[in-house]
């Protein structure tokens, strides 16, 4: 397996969905190819970093507006239920 072929299979390998036979080939290649090993490692770290990040808080005035708009809409909908 060449580095180019590795690249095409990278998603499936990282997500653990690669065909087992190809997976073994992938790992054999990596064992002898340090750059590919590091790229796979970097990709995993990249995904992990985004997954571990915390979502942003809503600005407080916007959060208040959002919830009052929802309460208002809820009241209208309760007064005129669909169907």
């Amino acid at each position, binding site marked *: 397996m060449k*580095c180019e072929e590795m690249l095409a299979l990278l998603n499936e390998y*990282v997500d653990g969905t690669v065909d087992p036979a190809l997976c073994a080939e992938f790992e054999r290649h990596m064992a002898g190819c340090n750059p590919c090993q*590091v790229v796979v490692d*970097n990709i995993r770290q*990249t995904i992990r*970093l985004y*997954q571990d*990040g915390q979502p*942003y808080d809503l600005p407080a005035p916007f959060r208040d507006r959002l919830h009052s708009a929802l309460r208002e809409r809820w009241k209208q909908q*309760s007064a005129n239920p669909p169907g």
Partner: protein
Amino acid sequence: MNDDATTELSDDALIRHARAGDLEAFEALVARYERQVYTLVLRIVRQEQDAQDVTQQTFISALEHLGGFRQEATFATWLFRIATHAALKILRKRKGLNTISFEEATEAQPDRDGLPHPEFIADWKQSPAELVTRHETQRLLEEALAQLDDKHRLVFLLRDVEGLSVKETAAALALSEANVKVRLLRARLQLREGLTRQFGDEARRVFSGHQH
């Protein structure tokens, strides 16, 4: 229901209560997901006022269509789909593409070029667990995301950040699964490149004799 009661309930239970007319249950669902929806939308539209508008539209739409939520997907996935649709409308308007269909706007240019080859290859100086606690990391992550084309950023956000499956991501963006996979790979490679230039250890940079 009081706050303590609602925070302990599952999404499904809250949805049942909300459908039965309990506003507090609906608000508890909103409180549970508002930060995630707002962050997703802000990263798609990259403009505060638009992000607020889209977030509000998303939850109003969820309120109006709660009866139609079929629980084939999780409630979160359903919300992210609504939010993505609303955010895409903004992107299309900005590009003056509001007259063309959703499918055309998202699938206009299938990726047929070769994949970008990794250039800066190095182990990172710190682990993601250490990096995530550093204040500047967040800014660098947002900058790297902003460098991506809309089509690549959208796929990465839904699949890798929000955890939708390839199939769900494809459905949310009206793309084929094959196209989602190609875009995801490009997004991951591009983000890896950008972040490794920031976080990579220059002293441990790896050079390959052949093209990677």
